């Protein structure tokens, strides 16, 4: 039977299993995204500060933070006096 247009993901899911690695990756991203967003809701932070707060390597923080910046969830704040590190904050959405 032809699957209904717009509901083909369900059809494929019935035919083949989703890879466990894909599910694990989604869980990890969802968890990290929430932890970064929660931390930035409190205050603007640099990558080093986020790394310390989340106990996550700086390079991983940068990767996820830049992904959230690309998706429009966070935005850059100010740069420090030494012109080295930016702070990041939750992006304000104009209602």
């Amino acid at each position, binding site marked *: 039977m*032809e*699957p209904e*247009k*717009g*509901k*083909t*993901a*369900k*059809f*494929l*899911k019935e035919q083949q299993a*989703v*890879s466990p690695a*894909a*599910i694990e*990756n*989604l869980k990890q*991203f*969802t968890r990290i*995204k929430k932890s970064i967003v929660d931390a930035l809701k409190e205050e603007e932070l*640099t*990558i*080093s500060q986020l*790394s310390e707060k989340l106990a996550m390597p*700086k*390079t991983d*923080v*940068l*990767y*996820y*933070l*830049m*992904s959230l*910046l*690309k*998706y429009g969830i966070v935005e*850059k704040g100010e*740069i420090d006096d030494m*012109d*080295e*590190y*930016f702070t990041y904050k939750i992006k304000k959405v104009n209602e």
Partner: protein
Amino acid sequence: MSEKNTSLAFDALVVGGGIAGGEAALNLATNGFKVLVVEKDLSVGGKMIHLSKVFPTLDCSACITTPKVSEISRHPLITIFTETEVKGIVKNGENDFDAKVVRKPRYVIAEDCTGCQLCEEACPVNVPDQYQYGLVGRKAAYIPFSIASPRVAAIDIENCTLCGACERACPTKCIDFTQKPVEYSVKVRTVVVATGFNLFDPVNIPRYGFGEYKNVITSMQMERQLAPTRPFHTILRPGDGKMPDKIAYVLCTGSRDASVGNPICSQICCMYSIKQAQLLMGALPMADITIYYINIRSFGKGFEEFYEQAKGMGVNFVKGKIGKITENAKGNLILRYEDINENILKEAEHDMVVLSVGVLPNTESEKLFVDKSLQLDEYNFVKQPEQLVSPAKTSIKGVFVAGTASGPMDIPDSILSAGSASSEAISYLNNK
């Protein structure tokens, strides 16, 4: 939507939709020949479409590539198959080739996709973006990059969790998870091989620390950082997000190095590094840029002046061979090198290192033909048996080579090579 076999006929098959393949296709089509361009990636435009600017003119690369790609895409005599691979070509006789090509599913009905990116917004998955060389993430439902051609969404089925969010968000209902690979039988009269090149993977030189030290990056990663569609909001160290102010370039990474199996010069690394150095001085005016080189090969039109311009801007050139790179506690890199002019070992500290990776052959071209042997040269590029008189001719009559499939070369030379290949192909088609 079951698997189907489709028979097609064209005058020419162009394998590879980069700048050389595109140019060859356009020349053939402009002369009235029907062309099929087969591209394995999701977009045509090859590596050039991902560059920031081109040397030595510093013209915007996208501004040159996009109109060209658009012209190719809109030409009535050119058919483009993206996400498609050639499974085998058989030569039956002169002006008579049979090709099997397999088009992989995109899981999107291309004709119905408006490129609105609502599927991308809805997708909850995040995986490394291959078009940003892993510096940032992308979704599993995604437009490959902003100037992709076609600008149509695709589903990364390996990383998709089949949650259906993209389908629910799509206003035109163009997501289709029932798509399957389609095999086409294509009859053509000539073939142009424009399979391009691969970049050297610096993991193969462990002493440079690529992969281990996050602030050691490749020149393509820097190229992306310099492009308007960059992965970060500015130039940043991937290790900790610091704006770098002391950047080193290591030339000949994987070129002119028999120990890694590539003894030849890649011909483009000196100039693209000098280009990036100039762009970095514009983006980070306070930064110190040092280029470690063995020899600067500025042999093309305007290249020597471009090199002198970089020196005039304050780029520091050190004739030195890098022995080892190590990282200190601050994430800075210590370069231990032989100063060739002074004949002594030295060390220098930089906060970011760019490895100017070389050009390697794409050996896939050898596997294109089933019954005939497409011969390669001693460096595994497509052999040009008549390099001086007919550089586009290959070991198979009626098969021509365009661009970097035949050896390292820059963009203008790739386009010239494509012109030569298309002229030879037209001559062959007219002499049936």
